[in-house]
């Protein structure tokens, strides 16, 4: 019975976090702990001719200075992340070229981006470590730098990694239907170059690692601010040559992740290794300036796209060629790039589709997935096209959308391509036209058009813009849960998915509480610790609720069955005649004759008093690994209402509306919080945030004074509408929600700005829509009008 699932249960995480009792990795202090600081490359591309660490080593309080030479034979270099390699059928279908492009732990004879780690100082404290950093002498020989992906792909470009022959690291093509035929039948072909720039996820807590090695038992304990503790454990084992079971990786309280903490970084391997070498606990906490340079960036795609349409707005086909500028390395196979290809058509029925993606290397920080992971880029392309089609045909953009939606009657809808997990990409359910209608109703579309006219007469420029998304969420391969009845009668749920703000301790407790008929207060959820269960994956790709939620749900059911069987033995009643409610098990016919969960827990222990039925293992615990058949498809419609100051180019968001479907809602307050937070990040990408490198590969936006994160002054209260189409792909009908909020804002806001300035022909095909860029566009358009 669902008593707690679907309710606004208050968060169990909050007490410690509100009283200053959280424990983030930087808060960990151990006896005899040393601290590390890292010297990073100040060059975008250079040879390292020599490194002199002698003065640094003599510095007061310094224990040692480590360079690449010290790691040789001790720590293997990274290989690609096998977790992200393609399934064989997908590989056969798209026949990609993917060149292995692993990253060194520390740069040895060459640096390829500003911020790359070169040397590590271990000292008695961070101040002493930083003093020594300043005394390391490196002789560089600068090399030609390439920062423009279009320059990078040219035959004459400097090659960043000689062994790859050129800077094209990956290439793939996806083809559906007959795109040439579609273009031959078109009344119009619209072409555009649409760019989503490089941004940085910027969790408020930077990265950090603490490692402690206990020689006596050969146990290595690592705390890391990561989204994927099991992945950290696995690579530590492989690359340092340790028994995996002797490593425990804990993600304690983690101050946001958003994708950048979903990679395994050199520091997460080298710092633990050094703790085994020096037999001391070692701590390294990244500072924000290091974070801007060395924590992975994201997005950075340029699409050259063509769309074939009929006079009535029907889209016949779409061709796209895009570059993803991945910086100096790519260890994530086609992750974001293929996501873009798979999601680009979104909610629209486009039967003929060709897309070619190339991952290109430049002298920048490597890219990894960030909230949305290839989808915001794709949506920015698709929904700008919808707007351009409307412009061309003098239609209302919403009518172009209605014309091309996949309808509820067509569900489940086969997109004719494979998803990244190798399954056929089939949208299972949803009502996309209904979603747009709901958004139009909330915003009051007809009234808005009236207001817009009136405002224009007073010289005010109001605009409305829409964007839509679908998102494959809850990707596998698996996530597990152990649910256990403690001897005290308290229930414990352990999961492999590792939270960093998503509220696992609350939502998973709600799922568990409902199965056992207890309050969530009687359930403790533990996560982010590889000692809890043997296998785990992590929290990313909107997968926590779908995968860990389903695992907890099924494991709870399994344990409940077992508890009823034990109670049956205790009460001498058939288990099927028993009911579990309020922490007690009793015969349905006689609720006064009961055993408590605590009594059942005692009766589960092995020994003469054991009441576990024959054939079952003693103990009050159940494990389930949920292996999703494929992803579930969340979806949503975003609507932005803006006012543009034509003289300054300043954009103010007046209203922002999201209508979304994430299947079964576990906790509405938490779901709404995910959406609101996602939209804030999306607004950042739409209006403020951009990672900029100059032609020498120097990071221009390396501080919070130049990389602008939205504050409370810039983010409106998002108005929300909900759809709840339960997914048939997991037992509770959950779809993921973490990323959706961040996917739509760039397209919705850009479209709204274009709408506000109509009939002026403004094409916003690059982000962010900053005042200076918008003013330039307005000036250009005004000049064109004059001629």
């Amino acid at each position: 019975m669902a008593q707690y699932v679907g309710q606004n249960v208050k968060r169990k995480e909050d007490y410690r976090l509100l009283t200053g009792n959280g424990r983030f990795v930087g808060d960990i202090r151990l006896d005899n702990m040393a601290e590390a600081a890292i010297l990073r490359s100040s060059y975008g591309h250079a040879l390292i001719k020599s490194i002199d660490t002698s003065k640094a080593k003599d510095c007061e309080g310094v224990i040692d200075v480590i360079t690449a030479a010290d790691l040789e034979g001790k720590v293997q270099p990274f290989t690609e992340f096998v977790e992200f390699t393609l399934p064989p059928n997908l590989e056969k279908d798209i026949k990609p070229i993917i060149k292995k492009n692993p990253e060194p732990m520390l740069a040895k004879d060459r640096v390829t981006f500003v911020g790359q780690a070169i040397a590590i100082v271990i000292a008695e404290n961070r101040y002493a470590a930083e003093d020594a950093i300043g005394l390391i002498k490196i002789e560089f020989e600068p090399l030609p730098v390439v920062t423009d992906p279009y320059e990078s792909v040219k035959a004459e470009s400097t090659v960043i990694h000689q062994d790859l022959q050129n800077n094209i690291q990956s290439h793939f093509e996806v083809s559906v239907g007959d795109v040439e035929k579609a273009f031959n039948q078109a009344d119009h072909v619209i072409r555009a170059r649409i760019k989503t720039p490089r941004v940085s996820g910027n969790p408020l807590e930077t990265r950090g690692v603490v490692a402690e090695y206990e020689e006596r038992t050969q146990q290595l304990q690592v705390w890391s601010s990561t989204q994927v503790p099991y992945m950290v454990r696995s690579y530590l084992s492989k690359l340092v040559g340790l028994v995996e079971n002797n490593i425990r990786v804990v993600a304690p309280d983690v101050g946001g992740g958003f994708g950048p903490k979903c990679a395994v970084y050199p520091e997460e391997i080298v710092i633990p290794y050094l703790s085994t070498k020096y037999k001391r606990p070692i701590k390294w906490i990244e500072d924000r300036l290091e974070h801007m340079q060395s924590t992975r960036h994201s997005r950075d795609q340029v699409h050259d796209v063509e769309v074939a349409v009929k006079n009535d707005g029907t889209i016949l086909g779409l061709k796209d060629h895009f570059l993803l500028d991945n910086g100096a390395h790519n260890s994530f196979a086609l992750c974001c790039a293929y996501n873009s290809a798979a999601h680009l058509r979104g909610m629209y029925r486009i039967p003929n589709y060709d897309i070619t993606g190339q991952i290109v290397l430049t002298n920048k920080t490597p890219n990894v997935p960030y909230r949305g992971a290839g989808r915001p880029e794709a949506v920015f392309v698709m929904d700008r096209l919808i707007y351009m089609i409307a412009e061309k045909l003098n239609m209302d953009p919403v009518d172009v959308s209605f014309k091309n939606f996949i309808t509820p009657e067509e569900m489940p809808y086969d997109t004719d391509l494979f998803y990244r997990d190798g399954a056929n990409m089939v949208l299972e359910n949803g009502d996309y036209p209904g979603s747009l209608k709901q958004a139009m109703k909330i915003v009051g579309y007809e009234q808005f058009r009236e207001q817009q006219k009136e405002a224009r007469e007073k010289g005010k420029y109001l605009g409305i813009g829409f964007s839509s998304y679908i998102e494959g969420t809850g990707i596998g391969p698996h996530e597990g849960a152990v649910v256990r009845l403690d001897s005290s009668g308290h229930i414990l749920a352990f999961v492999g998915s590792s939270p960093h703000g998503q509220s696992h301790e609350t939502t998973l407790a709600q799922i568990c509480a409902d199965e056992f008929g207890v309050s969530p207060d009687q359930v403790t959820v533990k996560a982010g610790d590889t000692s809890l269960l043997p296998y785990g994956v992590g929290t990313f790709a909107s997968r926590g609720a779908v995968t860990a939620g389903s695992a907890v749900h099924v494991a709870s059911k399994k344990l409940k069955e077992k508890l009823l069987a034990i109670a049956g033995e205790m009460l001498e009643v058939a288990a099927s005649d028993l009911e579990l409610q309020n922490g007690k098990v009793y015969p349905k016919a006689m609720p006064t004759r009961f055993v408590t969960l605590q009594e059942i827990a005692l009766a589960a222990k092995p020994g003469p008093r054991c009441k576990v039925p024959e054939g079952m293992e003693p103990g009050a615990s159940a494990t389930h690994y949920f292996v999703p058949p494929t992803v579930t498809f969340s979806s949503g419609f975003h609507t932005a209402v803006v006012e543009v100051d034509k003289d300054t180019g300043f954009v103010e968001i007046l209203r922002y509306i999201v209508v979304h479907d994430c299947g079964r809602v576990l906790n509405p307050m938490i779901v709404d919080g995910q959406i609101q937070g996602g939209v804030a990040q999306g607004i950042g990408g739409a209006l403020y945030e951009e990672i900029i490198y100059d032609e020498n590969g120097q990071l221009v936006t390396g501080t919070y004074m130049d990389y602008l994160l939205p504050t409370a002054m810039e983010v409106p209260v998002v108005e929300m509408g909900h759809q709840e189409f339960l997914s048939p792909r997991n037992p509770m009908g959950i779809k993921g929600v973490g990323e959706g909020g961040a996917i739509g804002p760039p397209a919705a806001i850009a479209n709204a700005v274009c709408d506000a300035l109509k009939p002026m022909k403004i094409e916003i095909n690059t982000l962010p829509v900053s005042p200076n860029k918008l003013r330039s566009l307005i000036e250009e358009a005004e000049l064109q009008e004059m001629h």
Partner: protein
Amino acid sequence: MKETLVKVTINGKEVAKEIESRWLLSDFLRDNLGLTGTHVGCEHGVCGACTVLINGEPVRSCLMLAVQADGCQVETVESLARADGSFNHIQQAFANNHALQCGFCTPGFLMSLKSFMENNPTLPTDEEIREAISGNLCRCTGYSNIIKAVKEAYALNC
């Protein structure tokens, strides 16, 4: 390195410590006194996560040296809960309104708001609340629930 004696009153308790004069107040609080509730987010005075109160005024503890706090009253997030461990009105309102997700930036917001509410005893407008918290960055919540929580904190404080 030469150390200087610093005497401060932290959360009502007098503390005297020898410390290198270059140590930041944030590091002093966290590393020397174990008050790790004050978080360090950017170390260049923008994000506001390290906000503490010095003589009642909000200050970014990453931009102040510990020696500069000599003779001052310092309040950190650890001082907010009541003696019995229960939430004060701002903490309670944050919990009621899901005004935190990862919770890393939260201590800074709580300290900024403590000072703001003391200096502005009557319920401010939404715009005033936004301005009051605009020196604190939050990357998770999108701020709307924090604004709701501030309004509720005023109601709880009546």
